[in-house]
């Protein structure tokens, strides 16, 4: 089968690959673009571990075809730290012990990032709603909710 060219901006860097038609964005990111930060938990859009941001919107990369992302801006957790400085969400997850096995963490953080871009000062209910598509087996969710609220607080302090 003929390969399909895909050109996209991945975490600020222009990238291009020839891929098989029908390849998911998740598999393209992991196997072709070498970004293994999005995780393949269920490959059916249920667990949220593969969540990435495409042109500002939160997407399940396991249900998104890579070829539909031609020209798109794709953000993953691999691009969050700038010059070795952790993103406030990464810092909050670390400080709040909001990860245990870590498999859900990239999806949780991207869901939180998409939320904070829309709602800089979210309520607890906003946070719960935002991560309701992400499954966590280890933490019982509470540390994750608290970490996201804490990151939002530190963002608004920095902005003030």
């Amino acid at each position, binding site marked *: 089968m003929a390969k399909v060219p895909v050109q996209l901006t991945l975490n600020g860097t222009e990238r291009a690959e020839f891929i098989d038609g029908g390849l998911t964005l998740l598999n393209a990111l992991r196997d072709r673009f070498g970004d293994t930060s999005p995780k393949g*938990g*269920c490959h*059916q859009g*249920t*667990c949220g571990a593969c969540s990435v941001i495409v042109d500002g919107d939160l997407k399940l990369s396991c249900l998104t075809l890579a070829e539909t992302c031609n020209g798109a801006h794709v953000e993953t957790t691999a691009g969050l730290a700038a010059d070795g400085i952790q993103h406030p969400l990464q810092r909050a997850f670390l400080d709040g*012990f909001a*990860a*245990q*096995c*870590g498999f859900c963490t990239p999806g949780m953080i991207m869901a939180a990032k998409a939320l904070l871009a829309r709602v800089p000062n979210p309520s607890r209910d906003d*946070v*719960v*709603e935002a*991560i*309701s598509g992400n*499954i*966590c*087996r*280890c*933490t*019982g*969710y*509470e*540390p*994750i*909710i608290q970490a996201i609220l804490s990151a939002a607080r530190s963002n608004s302090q920095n902005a003030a």
Partner: protein
Amino acid sequence: MALKRGRGVAAINYPTGMNLGGDPSQALVHSTPTGAFMVTLSSVDLGQGLRQVMAQICAETIGIPTEQVTIDTADTDTGPHCMGTFASRGTHRIGNAVAQAAREARQVMLEVAAEALEVDAGDLDTDGKGMIHVKGAPQKSISVFDTALAAHFKYGRSISGRGMFLVPRSFPETETGAMKPATCYAHACTVVDVEVDDETGEVDVVSVKNVFEVGRALNPSMVEQQLVGGSWMGISHALYETTEPYYPAREHGGRDFNEYLMPGPGNLAETETIVLERPAADGPYGAKGVGEMCANPQIPAVANAIFDAVGVRIDSLPITPEKILRALKAQRAAA
């Protein structure tokens, strides 16, 4: 038909580790030429924090900063023998092995330092920050870095140690069948308040209060994380999760994430978790295993709370609305 409130209590004691044919774990510790220390294990860190806690145990025992310890885990082809990370045994079994290996390595380290300083090894102590000094005379000192260099380049010694922790196989007594399959026991007590809708059988967990007795919490934040997540998992086991709801029949079992019922972030009960520390005599720095027991007491507590609320005893898990409604129907029929 009404919402009925109920309160349930359950207490457990939970064994650390298991004992089928004996329960061994081994560890090797050695220093690099620059005084960092390597702990080699076959044990797996699957997110519970084993590597962090083993680094703490090694550092505390040798008397160096935790950052100076590297933990190399999970190569069962080449590493020292470990039964594995299960049965809540990691911190206790592997921790004891690491502590023993680190004690031997510390002894060699102090012998080398003593030779370099021309003093007796018994007069030396560590400051935990990378220096070894004569007790009562901190100015007479040598760094761990220089000690390691001297061991490697001057004295031809390996600053290393072996740790072998074995709980021997326990045979049952012929007369009574009694045996000692475990070592120390962790304890927990949970109080759960529920609201049961006796029309729909739905259970709403209103509050969960846990007390866990963990020996010593070697890393308090990670212990709390384990307990908070485990408490949620216990509630989930009590009310939601199963692959075979009509076991042994396979019908209606979840086949994937879509069909497997698990509470999400919107279903969290108000939860309080208290840690009690009562160091175990046989644990590394007093630690017991708390891996699995943190998800146990919530289950009987929920069952008891439902009984308190609506007077029916459900003795299989998960306690679904269907089971509660069938039991209520049987209760009315018997009345």
